Structures are given as structure tokens and as C-alpha cells.
């Protein structure tokens, strides 16, 4: 439907004004400072320094790879969990308890959680003790300070986002489609693959994009769990802002990450969306 201009203006004025004042304007400041040299002249040197250096591309690759894997694992873990909650759990009290269990971990502080991870996944942690006790491994397996560790930590805090979005999408699917598929002689597993999954895709893509974006920009979790041995892009940015104090370079790093992520997310959204508003 084409919009009556006044309605549109009424609806969009407050949110856009707010964003202009408290997001766009500060970000313009950042963007400007990214093209200013120390002496105040305009320069593209910061960007050249980033984009012409293989190292930054390596870090970007690590960052996006971790984010992508995080997204993937979140989907693999979150989808069954959402399915379980929406389709399998019949007892409302238990479903609600599960929702609480899923949400509550988000409230814990990263730092305390990282202690939890050390207790669980550390060199002498419960998991390694268990594995060694069972004779599955001789030396403790390293989880912390590896990409695996970062993945475990990121998946942990991002899985709830998938469960909530995918769960909402699942709950909205008309079961008639699944019945139609069953009626056509297709068993549950393939009905899931050919009907349910494609139908939840918009919700899942939305959740995946959220997870991907959050994983790309996450700082505290990767910083704590990398043990300083893996660098993701947000750490480079944080470094510039908090210990090197090169705000111009830091700004250029930020804008680079923002733009690249937005491009990726937009492309993914195009693929997943498909549905246009009425």
C-alpha cells in the first residue's frame, strides 16, 4: 500500500529523530575522525593502512569465520531446542521453566562466566577430568585460548536469540502444511526438511543475522576466552580506543567492520527474506 505521507511522517518521526541525534550524529563524528590525520588534514591513510594490509584481512577472516561458525552452531543447537519447546513439550510449566533456563544465562556477567568456563573447560576442568577419567584422552584438551573456546562462549550467549526467534517462527507455522506433506506420503523427517524448514527460514534468517552481527561485534567474550591468543576485529578496535589511544585509526577500523558486516548481513537478508510486505 502506498502511504499517506502524514501517517508515515507521524510513525517515523520519533524513531528517526532519535536515531539521527544519538546514532547517526555520533557515528558521523566517528566517520569524520576516521578520515582525519593527526595534524587535522583529510586523509585516507587510515583506510589504506587497513585495507592494503594482508594482516587485517586475516583478522577479518578469523572474525567472520568465528561469527559464521557461531551462527551455524547456534542454529544447529537452537533449532532442535526451539522445536522441542514448541512442538514436543506439552507440559506448559516445563516449557516456561525451559524459557527461563534459556534466558537467565544471559544475565550473568561475562567475567564470572569465564570463571565458570575455566572450571568446566580448563586444563584441569571438569570436562577434561571426565575425559581423562574415561581414558578418552591422555593430555588435557585445550579449549580455552582456542577458537573452540571462543565458539563455546559465543554460542552460549547467542543460542537464546535463535531459540526465541526460531521458536516464534515455528509457533506461527500453520500445521496444515505439515499435514499436507504427511498426507502426500512424506515422513516427518523429510517433511521437516522440505516444508517446515523452508517455512521457518524467514524467522531463522532473522535470528541468524542477529547472531552473526552480535558475534562479529562481540568483544568481551572473545577477549576473555581467547586468552589473548586469537585476535578478532573488535579487539583491534578496542585496543585503539583503550590502550593505544589512536582514535582516528580506531574509527577507521570501526567503520570498516560496520560497512563489511552490513554488506554481508544485507546480502544474507536478501537471500532469506523473499517476502515483501503487503
Amino acid at each position, binding site marked *: 500500500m502506498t502511504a499517506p505521507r502524514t501517517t508515515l511522517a507521524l510513525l517515523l518521526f520519533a524513531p528517526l529523530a532519535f536515531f539521527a541525534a544519538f546514532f547517526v550524529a555520533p557515528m558521523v563524528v566517528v566517520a569524520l575522525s576516521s578520515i582525519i590525520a593527526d595534524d587535522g588534514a583529510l586523509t585516507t591513510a587510515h583506510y589504506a593502512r587497513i585495507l592494503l594490509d594482508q594482516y587485517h584481512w586475516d583478522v577479518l577472516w578469523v572474525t567472520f569465520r568465528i561469527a559464521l561458525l557461531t551462527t551455524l552452531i547456534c542454529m544447529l543447537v537452537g533449532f532442535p531446542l526451539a522445536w522441542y519447546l514448541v512442538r514436543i513439550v506439552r507440559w506448559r510449566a516445563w516449557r516456561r521453566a525451559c524459557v527461563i533456563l534459556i534466558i537467565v544465562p544471559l544475565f550473568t556477567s561475562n567475567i564470572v562466566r569465564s570463571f565458570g568456563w575455566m572450571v568446566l573447560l580448563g586444563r584441569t576442568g571438569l570436562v577434561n577430568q571426565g575425559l581423562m577419567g574415561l581414558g578418552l584422552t591422555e593430555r588435557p584438551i585445550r579449549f580455552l585460548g582456542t577458537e573452540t573456546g571462543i565458539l563455546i562462549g559465543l554460542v552460549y550467549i547467542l543460542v537464546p536469540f535463535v531459540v526465541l526467534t526460531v521458536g516464534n517462527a515455528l509457533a506461527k507455522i500453520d500445521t496444515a502444511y505439515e*499435514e*499436507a506433506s*504427511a*498426507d*502426500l*506420503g*512424506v*515422513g516427518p523427517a523429510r517433511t521437516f526438511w522440505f516444508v517446515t524448514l523452508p*517455512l521457518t527460514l524467514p524467522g531463522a534468517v532473522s535470528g541468524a543475522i542477529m547472531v552473526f552481527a552480535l558475534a562479529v561485534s562481540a568483544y568481551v567474550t572473545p577477549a576473555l576466552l581467547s586468552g589473548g591468543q586469537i585476535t578478532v576485529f573488535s579487539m583491534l578496535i578496542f585496543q585503539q580506543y583503550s590502550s593505544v589511544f589512536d582514535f582516528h585509526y580506531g574509527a577507521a577500523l570501526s567503520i570498516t567492520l560496520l560497512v563489511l558486516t552490513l554488506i554481508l548481513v544485507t546480502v544474507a537478508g536478501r537471500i532469506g527474506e523473499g517476502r515483501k510486505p503487503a
Partner: protein
Amino acid sequence: MQPLLSIESVSKRFAGHQALHEVDLAIGGGEFIALLGPSGCGKTTLLRCIAGFLKPDDGRILIEGADITGAPPYRRPLNTVFQSYALFPHMSVADNVAYGPRRAGTGRTEAQARAREALALVGLEEMGERLPRALSGGQQQRVALARAIVNRPKLLLLDEPLSALDLKLRRRMQIELKHIQEKLGIAFIFVTHDQEEAMAMANRIVVMNAGRIEQVGTPADIYRAPASRFVAEFVGEPNLIPVEPARPGRMRLKVTGAELPYAEGVRCVMARPEDLVLVDGTPPADLATAPGIVEEVVAVGPVTTLFIRCGDVVLKVARLGMSATALHPGSAVTVGLRVSALHPIVE
């Protein structure tokens, strides 16, 4: 001969509401069965039990003698055309139709060829590439039909497949459906709430009411010899004329005073509006007559119905064409009815 489908005393209850009550039904191969009944009588529920989406609380369902009561839907040799179509919105029309064969292991080309064939059968061969939402309601319904018949099931369940179509298209689809059914030899169970549709299409009609089967019979049986007042009223417009006991072994029509052999439990007899005539001059000997006053004239297409008050009773008299509109409310007329056409209603 073993029936294709046997339903044996199936009951289904929803939270305190008895949706199906000991339903028994047997259907032969290639039959066209219409399931007729008022809204909420359990038609969809029965269909869903047959298709396997609901498990009956009691009773058994057999296909060719094999008990499938507990079998999941995807193990049953039947297909459904859903009331809401339930076309997969993310697949093209052709993919929707090819879905069944593909999942059954048919190769891509072969499945597409069969889909094209099925689409041709419903007159949509050119729409294969479109998405379902780009079709009109009637076209969507035909796609649902194509999708259900492409697998050549033994039994096809159709839940009000024509209810969203306009009359013209519905008539065309009725004829096409009947042709398809005859050509493929598939048995159809066709839910409808339109008794004309049921009569035009079905070999046998099953009339349901409040979770029970009231009558099963050919269209003519159901129309001419309804087993209950409910069926008489549900299938067309009946004249229900009260009777009273007369001399031993006989009962008398309240309106004309004509007499009939006595039958236990009969409080009224039925005559269809087309069985009644207006009499000019002396009536033939086999007609019982009664004087009356025209109350209302309703002309609907080919048939004009006169509502004629004869004492306490208003009789409906059907006449062909609109010529009857020459009669006006208030005219005095004589209604004649052939006693042999009367059907006693047992209560």
C-alpha cells in the same frame, strides 16, 4: 467383496464435545461419496480421522481389510484436498504437484512430467512456474487437486473443495471433478454442505448430523425417502404434513384429509414442493386437494416457490419458470397432492 474403506464404530471426543459418535461406513473402490451435513457436524473430523491426522478414541479404520487406525498419515494410501488448500507457499505450482512423486523417490524429470500431466488434467498446464499466491482462489483449489491426484491414490478425500468458487466455476469444476474421478477410477469422499452439489456429483450421499450418520443412500433415496425429519429438511425443502390416527390401521393427513396406511411412530409425511400442484377445475381422482391462500412467491432462477397456507400448515409448491409470478399473495388456490408420492417420516 471387501470394501475399499471400512469405518467401524469410530468415535472422537474433543474436550467434552462428542464430535463423532460411533460412525460406521463402508466405501467401495471407485465410488463417489458425498459427505453432507451442517456446519460443525463432524465432517472435517471424520475426514481427518481417515487421513490420519486425528486418532479416533474408539473404533477401527480399515483400508482393503488392513487396519490403519494407528498408521501415520504418510503411510496411508490416500490423499487429501484440504479445505484451506495448504499449498506450500515456498514452492512453485509445479513443485507443489511434483512434491509427492519426488518424495516417493521418482526422478526429477519423471516427477515433473507427471506434475505437468496432473496440472493439464485440471486445466492449469501453463501455471506451473508460478507461486501459489499468484493464483486466484479457484486456481489454487485446482492445484491442490492436482497435487492430491498425481500420486494416483486409491482414495481421495476432499474437504469442501469447491466452496470458495463462484457458481459458474463451481459447476464447471463439478463436471471436471466427476470426469477426473471416473477416468482415474479413484474413490472420492467429498465433503460439502451444498446438497445440490452432493446430488449432482455423488453415487452415494452420507448425511451427518451432530457427530452421527443419519442416512446413507443414493441421491434419489436421500431426496425422495429421507430417513428422518433432519434429512428431509437438510436435503431440499420438504413439505412436512402432520398426520393423525384415523380408523384402525389408517392415519389421516391433517391438511387434505386423505388417508394412508398406519405406521408406528409416524407423526408426519413428507412431500417435495415439486410433488404438489395447483389444481384448476376438477382434480384427477388420485389427487387429494385442499384450498389455500398464497402467502408468498419466491422466484429463484428456474423454480418459483409458492407458499400456500392451508389451515395451520404452509405448503410449498414449486413451479417451473417465472410465469407463476402471475399469482400474487392473497390469491385463493387449490393445492393437489398425489398420495402415492408421500413419504412417511419416522421420528
